């Protein structure tokens, strides 16, 4: 039994300690790493659909580009959201969190999501705050794109 314990401690205990220290060594919190490793809602929605608001924010020169799409249902609530990001781990995590949070909200409620909420949820280090800013602007741009698509329809209805 002692021999088995020796073998277990040699392989498993050391391994877990190192794995924990590997995670903390990158100085990123667990939520962030989780969103990075298992990003939610990666993909695309149909750009042409009038209930889908799309936006591409950022620039490759800055090293951060986010494509954000939200799909509203006929009641004006978000039913699906998808994202694609070219950027560092913080940017990917920020946009992944953003797609999770917009689901089930109306357009006005989406606009109330701020970059500080995202940054706090992920425990972003100060140097990565701009990633959450980009995620917030991605939400806003896609919502206003959806509203712009809806506006001509509303005017036609009024007429």
């Amino acid at each position, binding site marked *: 039994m002692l*021999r088995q314990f020796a073998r277990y401690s040699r392989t498993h205990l050391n391994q877990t300690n190192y794995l924990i220290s590997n995670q903390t060594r990158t100085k*990123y919190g667990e939520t962030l790493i989780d969103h990075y490793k298992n990003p939610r809602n990666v993909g695309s929605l149909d750009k042409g659909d009038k209930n889908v608001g799309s936006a*591409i924010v950022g620039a*490759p*020169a800055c090293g951060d580009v986010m494509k954000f799409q939200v799909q509203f249902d006929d009641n004006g609530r978000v039913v699906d959201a998808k994202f*694609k990001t*070219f950027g560092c781990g913080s940017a*990917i995590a920020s946009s992944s969190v953003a797609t999770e949070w917009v689901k089930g909200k109306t357009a006005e409620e989406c606009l109330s999501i701020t970059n500080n909420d995202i940054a706090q949820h992920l425990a972003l280090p100060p*140097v990565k705050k701009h990633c959450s800013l980009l995620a917030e602007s991605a939400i806003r741009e896609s919502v206003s794109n959806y509203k712009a698509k809806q506006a001509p329809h509303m005017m036609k209805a009024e007429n």
Partner: protein
Amino acid sequence: MMKRLITPLTRVTLRSLYSTAQVQSKVVQFTEPRAPEVYKNSESSTKAIYFDLGATTPVDPRVLDRMLPLYTDMYGNPHSRTHEYGWNSEAQVEEARRHVADLIGCTSKEIVFTSGATESNNTAIKGVARFYKKKKNHIITTQTEHKCVLDSCRHLEDEGFTITYLPVKQNGLIDLDLLEQEITDKTLLVSVMAVNNEIGVLQPLKDIGQLCRKRGVLFHTDAAQAVGKIPVNVDDMCIDLLSISGHKLYGPKGIGALYVRKNKPRVRLAPIINGGGQEGGRRSGTVPSPLVVGLGEACRVAKQDLERDAKYVKELSKYMIEGFRSRLDHVILNGDEEQRYPGIVNISFAYVEGESLLMALNTVALSSGSACTSASLEPSYVLRALGVSEDLAHTSLRFGIGRFTTKKEVDYVLDKCSFEVERLREMSPLYEMVKEGIDLSEVKWEHH
């Protein structure tokens, strides 16, 4: 049975340490180098595979064995003239100096020990400039130099020097005609690094040296990444000043050397560290004998193994680059393909950002030219000087291959990296746009 519970993980390397009792001053012959067996199989091991050899190298076990007696036994100050501790220490330091000199083809008297290549570069540039200030005040360097060279030059501008920062061609090499045009009769020094630490490009040292000798200009080269890996001969290449870094050639950290030519022409310099006048008045301070002996042994071993290492690294590097090219598309090698040191491979994986790829490759130790990994948000200045567009500069990764890299590790990196790049490309809007046929340079991006 209870004793078996505690098993030291590094038994392999510790054994070699305990076996060296009294090392005489004559050279001890060691066997073939053992690769550091700190990790066996990458997935189940606890430590990342080390592929960041451009940043620093592990200490060769032969070097460590040679250094230890100087900490335990022969710990005298090499400048103490009155007892055997000092005499023994001095003998060790002089032997190490001979090894360093042999590696680059000069005499012992021309080697000055410093705290590293940064100090050697500072001494070479500022020391030489301040000595010859009254006669000549123009210095030429390149835009891809190490930060210590660029920063020293910037400080000299405040002291009244004119500095020319030569641009490089797209493959990273300097234009010799441009260099010839820039040399005036006020030019004192040309400083061009031998092997670039970020992209691995090898500059034409012999041509630059001959040009400088012809025009009466001193030639300094920061050979931190080159010494011990490619054959360097200061007479052949007409080099007047050369910087060496200990921890880039499997030696200890905190030690370096500066070669200062003694004749034809004799190079004088004003010391930047003043004190008791050690190292021929060029660098004061107690010479750190254990570190110096480590550097000497690293140089001796490098000279002995140079051909074998060079061939091994070249094959492995070619295997790795071809491996990437066959598994992925949109893979760009930064820097010239032929004129390079094969051990430093800087690759851009387009449409995938460097820091996110590094996070994905958490079992491999690497560095990137991306902005997100540096303290500022600017991408690497070396890649910018090559004319690499900003979005590609964010996507580059630097791999280092050296004496202890095994083919198994390279295979693992190839597989894992290809897998992660494909996964991240699925998540990348830029890749999606490229697949749809959109030309990214035509897109108007909105800046936030």
